[in-house]
């Protein structure tokens, strides 16, 4: 799919280039303006205009896209920009994206079932990505050509079959073919390659992958993660001339499937024979040395040996080489981050070496450094300040797959170690520099980043500033989970910024019933804690009504889930209706409580009765006031006597009514 898209972009780019070539006058004009300025002699700075600017096929599209930024208020590109189809909570986000992906999967299935319907080739130039997968072979006899064909199509099982046929027939293969076959076996571990997942699936399914680090290497099936490749090893033994390439393939294959011991054995063999190999082998060995060693000392020694070998072989290291070395050390991070061990010095040595060689570290390097130096929870995160100051204002380029882990790791360190708002803002500024946002990674990492960023904000920032960020991020960039809402509600409670509650509640609500039952009590208590302006009071009453309606709907539909409402919550709901001036609605709920108070656990607050009686007096409704005090007696509320006195004062009661009241109090 990715290939087809890039092809498509390339095609449209061509037409853009055509347009561009017609607009050359503007560049000429620019040129003359500069040269005229130079002739006047006022210009001190000399501007050198290159005669020809090197452009690749995407540079014009990149230039165009640099003029526009991402709209925070629009949904992600994988979703339809329609109110009904925009996902409202994390669950929906995942469901929709995976539905689309499974639609593509179904189409691919149909295409593979009836490939001849899709064979016509109308595209010029030919687009291989839009052709159905080839299933039949041109060569069916067990010959070398047939083997090459299967290797090119990456059909591992069939290639092995053909190879065994050829062996049985006793015919010889060319060395080049054998190498290619060895490469195929090593890359896929002698198994059929797993299907390439769709981008949506990759974006959302890394949660499982993160739990098991071995999945990070791009292997999806757990059963295929161990090196089980006897055939590759025999083939290697049979090679008449063991070239550096053959060693490279086998070592990298073993490393990919975590066979450290064999890989190191092979490497020492290679060293004995003084065969010079490329940088990739050293990278692989460096990455494996963590797995191969049992202590950090041993790991250091391995890494040092490998670097010495590299310099002896005159192989130039690059940023990936150092990343591999640091990644091996990650295994011993708990040990290295101990202040007594001074693991920071070791890491510093590598960084100094990089500086000496003129290699600029990438985000992955910094992620490893951060992981090693700030591993312990009580570390002060001093290194983080240095790193962020160094990176400030830079736009990164993608170099290592581990680049994606940096930002979520950094913000976690801020939350756990630094606890500093300033550095969190600096990190956020860095994320928003240029196109650095793409380094946030997949959905899981994006959520991690924003969750912790938000927690840091909630710790230190004023509520208005927090809400400014909240409005910008929610719902399209980030959707808060259940663990983030309590932080937000705490902040609102401390600052008494209850005006933000309706917005927060609407976001809680869209997450479903479990979120409502989780936060209803907390939000209701917050809403009744003080009195508010009439407009806000009205919105709070609406929220109360919604909570009740959700509960009733669930009971009516006989769903398994339910929103539990106890007596204090019921009291709060009644209070909210009273304060909004909805006396009838409040009375209905009060009656409901009176009739079925056994169904609501606990007791209502006394304030509810007081305000209810006050409202009855305002409404001049003697009967309702009587019902109120009767219930107070039944529920043994403390201030029943005062209320009775109040009623006696406020109404013109008949003698029998007064007697009735006295009877209530005396009993």
């Amino acid at each position, binding site marked *: 799919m990715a290939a087809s898209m890039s092809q498509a972009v390339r095609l449209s780019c061509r037409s853009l280039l055509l347009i561009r070539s017609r607009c050359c006058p503007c560049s000429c004009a620019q040129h003359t303006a500069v040269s005229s300025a130079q002739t006047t002699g006022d210009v001190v700075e000399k501007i050198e205009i290159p005669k020809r600017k090197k452009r690749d096929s995407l540079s014009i599209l990149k230039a165009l896209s640099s003029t526009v930024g991402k709209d925070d208020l629009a949904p992600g590109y994988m979703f339809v920009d329609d109110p009904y189809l925009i996902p409202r909570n994390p669950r929906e986000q995942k469901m929709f994206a995976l539905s689309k992906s499974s*639609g593509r999967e179904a*189409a691919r*299935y*149909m295409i593979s079932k009836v490939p001849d*319907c899709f064979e016509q080739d109308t595209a010029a130039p030919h687009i291989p990505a839009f052709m*159905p997968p080839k299933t039949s072979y041109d060569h069916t006899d067990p010959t070398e050509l047939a083997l090459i064909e299967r290797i090119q199509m990456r059909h591992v099982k069939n290639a092995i079959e053909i190879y065994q046929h050829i062996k049985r027939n006793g015919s010889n293969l060319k060395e080049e073919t054998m190498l290619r076959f060895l490469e195929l076996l090593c890359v896929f571990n002698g198994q059929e390659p797993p299907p390439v997942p769709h981008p949506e699936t990759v974006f959302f399914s890394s949660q499982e992958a993160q739990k098991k680090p071995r999945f990070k290497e791009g292997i999806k099936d757990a059963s295929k993660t161990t090196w089980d490749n006897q055939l590759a090893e025999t083939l290697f033994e049979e090679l008449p001339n063991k070239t550096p390439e053959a060693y490279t393939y086998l070592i990298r294959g073993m490393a990919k499937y975590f066979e450290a011991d064999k890989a190191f054995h092979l490497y020492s063999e290679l060293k004995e024979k003084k065969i010079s190999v490329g940088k990739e082998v050293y990278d692989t060995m460096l990455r494996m040395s963590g797995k191969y060693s049992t202590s950090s000392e041993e790991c250091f020694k391995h890494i040092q040996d490998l670097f010495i070998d590299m310099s002896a072989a005159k192989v130039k290291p690059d940023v990936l080489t150092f990343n591999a070395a640091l990644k091996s050390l990650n295994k011993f991070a708990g040990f290295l981050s101990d202040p007594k061990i001074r693991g920071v010095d070791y890491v510093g040595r590598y960084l100094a070496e990089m500086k000496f060689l003129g290699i600029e570290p990438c985000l992955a390097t910094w992620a490893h450094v951060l992981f090693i130096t700030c591993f312990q929870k009580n570390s002060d995160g001093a290194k983080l300040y240095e790193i962020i100051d160094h990176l400030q204002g830079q736009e990164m380029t993608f170099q290592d797959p581990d680049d994606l882990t940096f930002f979520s790791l950094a913000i976690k360190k801020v939350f756990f170690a630094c606890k500093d708002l300033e550095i969190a803002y600096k990190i956020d500024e860095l994320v928003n520099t240029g196109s650095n946002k793409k380094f946030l990674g997949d959905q899981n990492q994006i959520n991690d980043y924003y969750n912790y960023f938000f927690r840091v904000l909630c710790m230190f920032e004023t509520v208005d500033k927090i809400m400014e960020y909240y409005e910008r991020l929610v719902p399209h960039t980030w959707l808060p989970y259940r663990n983030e809402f309590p932080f937000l509600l705490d902040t609102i409670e401390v600052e008494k910024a209850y005006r933000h509650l309706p917005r927060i509640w609407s976001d809680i609500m869209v997450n479903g019933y479990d979120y409502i039952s989780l936060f209803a009590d907390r939000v209701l208590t917050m809403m009744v804690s003080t009195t508010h302006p009439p407009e806000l009071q009205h919105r709070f009453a609406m929220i109360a009504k919604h909570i009740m309606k959700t509960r009733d709907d669930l009971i009516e539909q006989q769903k398994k889930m339910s929103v539990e409402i106890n007596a204090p919550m019921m009291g709060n709901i009644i209070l909210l209706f009273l304060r909004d001036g909805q006396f009838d609605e409040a009375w209905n709920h009060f009656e409901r409580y009176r009739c079925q108070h056994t169904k609501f656990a606990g007791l209502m607050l006394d304030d509810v009765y007081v305000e209810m009686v006050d409202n009855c007096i305002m409404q001049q409704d003697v009967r309702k006031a009587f019902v109120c005090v009767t219930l107070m007696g039944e529920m043994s509320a403390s201030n029943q006597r005062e209320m009775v006195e109040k009623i006696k004062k406020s109404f013109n009661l008949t003698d029998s009514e007064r007697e009735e009241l006295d009877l209530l109090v005396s009993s």
Partner: protein
Amino acid sequence: MAAYCRSCIVNMQKAFQPVKFQSLLLHNIRRNFGTSTICRGLNGVPNKNLRAGKQKISINKDKPLTYEQTQPPNLIGVTKSWNSWNSGSLEGEREKNAAQIVFDDIFIRKFMYGTWHNLFASEVIIKRQYNQIIIAGLIEQSNHNNIYFLIGYTEELLSFLLKCPVKVEIQTVADKKDLIFRYI
């Protein structure tokens, strides 16, 4: 999956057979052209005598029409717009691609009405930009996951059939009745 799809595959094989497919087209070809130059009164025929593309009034005057249907073809480009947007009618393009574009559009419309069964509330709008085909329209709201599944399915399948990137850009309406503009 396999058991479910076997009948679908047979249907697909029937539908995509080139020869059969064309004969099927000839049968229904009139229905698929929204407009043609004849509808627009180029031959000096007075507008009142043109019947093509105009809705007939029902006896009880209770036939619901969308805005699109109420506008006669001579008002295309005045009060309503085209259903197909492409450069097929331009000088130089006409000889090369026009027929192929019309043929593809008919196929896409048939595919959309069949695959998105009973979901489309408006005409299917087909726009071509560079080598990209954008299929737009209004659909009725149904299960979210189904809609996203269909988007993925349609984009992938049509891309493989037409050999160019196909995108589905839809908007939803709560009810098809929301689109009723007039009863005649």
